[in-house]
């Protein structure tokens, strides 16, 4: 008997992931095309959280729109407010008093730490550390969150920065409270380090996964830890120094391979550098007014346009304001880092195993409200 030899037929499978999926960090959907275990195509679908913030801001005056900045990237609110306030200050020619600059820097860097704690915790879950890393991250984040609450009166939507400074002065024990918390944060970073950094499973799941080269990263417009993990030493705080960052001594961590593990390492090191900045800023924190002397009651901008960007927790968070005069922006564009970083997802994921898609997405550290705005 002769058996007919036939080739095994294979078919690419489409797998839908999201929008309600625990590993998508929000409402995000992607359709993975897989050949066996290997991803051959990714089609991300975003926009579930689109709330038209740019349009809303056109109908708010310059102070009202601050509230919206908290709602884009809700893990790094102070950094967003900083970018927005810098844009309005540039537009109106407002000079920020020293004390406010320092308060802002301290809060922004603490905010970067909380955001990265959140990342490390959630990333651990993505790689299979059920719960432990998450509770570690959240525990440490909570201590800093308490300070934010004492300063601004809110736990999530701070609305504390104003064009020209901050809305009110920090509590009297602010410096002491931050000094109390910093050692805890250092310990928290150490704990996470011990749990994750040299963990064999963690390294095996993240080394060499989701690689993007430095040139590709620039081409895709990646910024922040994503860009630095690919070996490009670019940090707006150093390279386009804004506010008073040139007064502090800190390093920019850079990765070697541009893989998921490097992104984790870069963020861990950034937390340590942020603590350094906060320590120096606390030393130098001067007394004085928090708003300029001649602060207009109503902010009216001249007809002009301006771009201001900060090094956010996820990358370059920029605000472009087109003004035609009056108390409202004519057009307000938010250049959100998550949006740009997420657009390179396909490049990073194709060729990897389907199980690693979650790790890669986690390493981008997206906030879906920041992606969709």
């Amino acid at each position, binding site marked *: 008997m002769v058996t007919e030899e036939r080739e095994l037929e294979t078919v690419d499978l489409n797998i839908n992931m999201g929008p309600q999926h625990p590993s998508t960090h929000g409402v995000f959907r992607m359709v993975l095309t897989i050949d066996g275990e290997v991803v051959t195509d990714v089609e991300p679908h975003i926009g579930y959280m689109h709330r038209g913030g740019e349009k809303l801001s056109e109908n708010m005056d310059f102070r009202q729109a601050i509230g919206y900045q908290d709602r884009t990237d809700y893990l790094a609110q102070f950094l967003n407010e900083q970018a927005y306030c810098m844009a309005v200050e540039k537009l109106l020619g407002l000079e920020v008093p020293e004390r406010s600059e320092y308060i802002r820097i301290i809060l922004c860097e603490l905010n970067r730490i909380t955001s990265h704690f959140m990342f490390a915790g959630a990333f651990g879950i993505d790689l299979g550390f059920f719960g432990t890393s998450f509770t570690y991250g959240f525990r440490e984040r909570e201590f800093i969150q308490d300070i934010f609450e004492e300063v601004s009166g809110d736990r999530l939507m701070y609305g504390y920065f104003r064009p020209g400074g901050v809305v009110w002065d920090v509590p009297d024990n602010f410096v002491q409270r931050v000094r109390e918390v910093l050692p805890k944060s250092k310990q928290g970073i150490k704990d996470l380090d011990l749990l994750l950094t040299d963990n064999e499973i963690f390294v095996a799941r993240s080394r060499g996964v989701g690689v993007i080269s430095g040139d590709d990263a620039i081409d895709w417009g990646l910024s922040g830890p994503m860009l630095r993990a690919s070996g490009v030493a670019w940090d707006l705080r150093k390279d386009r120094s804004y506010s008073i960052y040139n007064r502090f001594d800190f390093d920019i961590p850079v990765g070697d391979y541009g893989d998921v593990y490097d992104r984790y390492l870069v963020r861990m090191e950034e937390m340590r550098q942020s603590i350094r900045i906060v320590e120096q800023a606390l030393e130098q924190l001067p007394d004085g007014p928090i708003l300029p002397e001649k602060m207009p009651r109503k902010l009216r901008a001249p007809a002009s346009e301006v771009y201001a960007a900060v090094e956010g927790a996820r990358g370059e968070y920029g605000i472009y304001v*087109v003004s035609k005069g009056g108390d409202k922006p004519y057009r307000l564009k938010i250049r959100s880092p998550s949006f740009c970083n997420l657009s390179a997802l396909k490049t990073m994921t194709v060729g990897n195993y389907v199980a690693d898609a979650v790790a890669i997405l986690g390493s981008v550290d997206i906030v879906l409200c920041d992606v969709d705005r």
Partner: protein
Amino acid sequence: MSEQEKSPEDSGGEAPAEAGEQKAEAPAEAPAEAPAAEAKPARAEKAAAAPTKEPPPPGGIADLLKEALPDIQMEAYQGLSSVIVEIARDDISTVMRAAKDDPRLDLKFLRCLFGVDHLEEGFEVIYQLLSLTKDHEVTIKTRLPQADPKVASVTPVWNAANWHERETRDMFGIDFEGHPHLVPLLLPEDMTDHFPLRKDNPLAPVEEWQGELLGEHMASAGHIPAGSGFEVEAEAGGE
């Protein structure tokens, strides 16, 4: 509130700037601004200080661009945060390709691109370019007529432009010719004829939804069931 309604009361500060230097951005508002002449000195100072059309610094990015692209018509001036260069829309591909590849310019990083709706004056597409190696950055602008909002895609130059162009198409209906996959990104797939960020698309009026202050649109929108006993209050509450 529409743009036309609010311009007279807002224009107090700009009148002196108008007199001092010609304003590039808003000729449409000029007639409305003339009558509102009372300007407080502090504000007038600020408005006058705002550089609307100052020449760019010599030897800067504007000169480099002209040197690299001698055949291209461009108008350059110093903006508040960077040098702004205006070019014709037909030149976009040439200029962007050169901006990225020319070693003198080395503008390898596209920060973002987005649209602005100037109503009768058409659409503006603004590109923000940055050099990671050299100490310069530039804002490039181009104007598209309102009736024919089309411009060449820069996605072949920068992959970063891919999603930005899709978003701009969603929000303004600007057609980026040569884009590999110009389908709705942030908006629903079938929403291809409605462009939320255009200025002829105002926000809905604010409705009060609490207590006695039920808004006037409530009844007509069908939020109050007939016969529920609240119809009368809804009308009275509108004041």
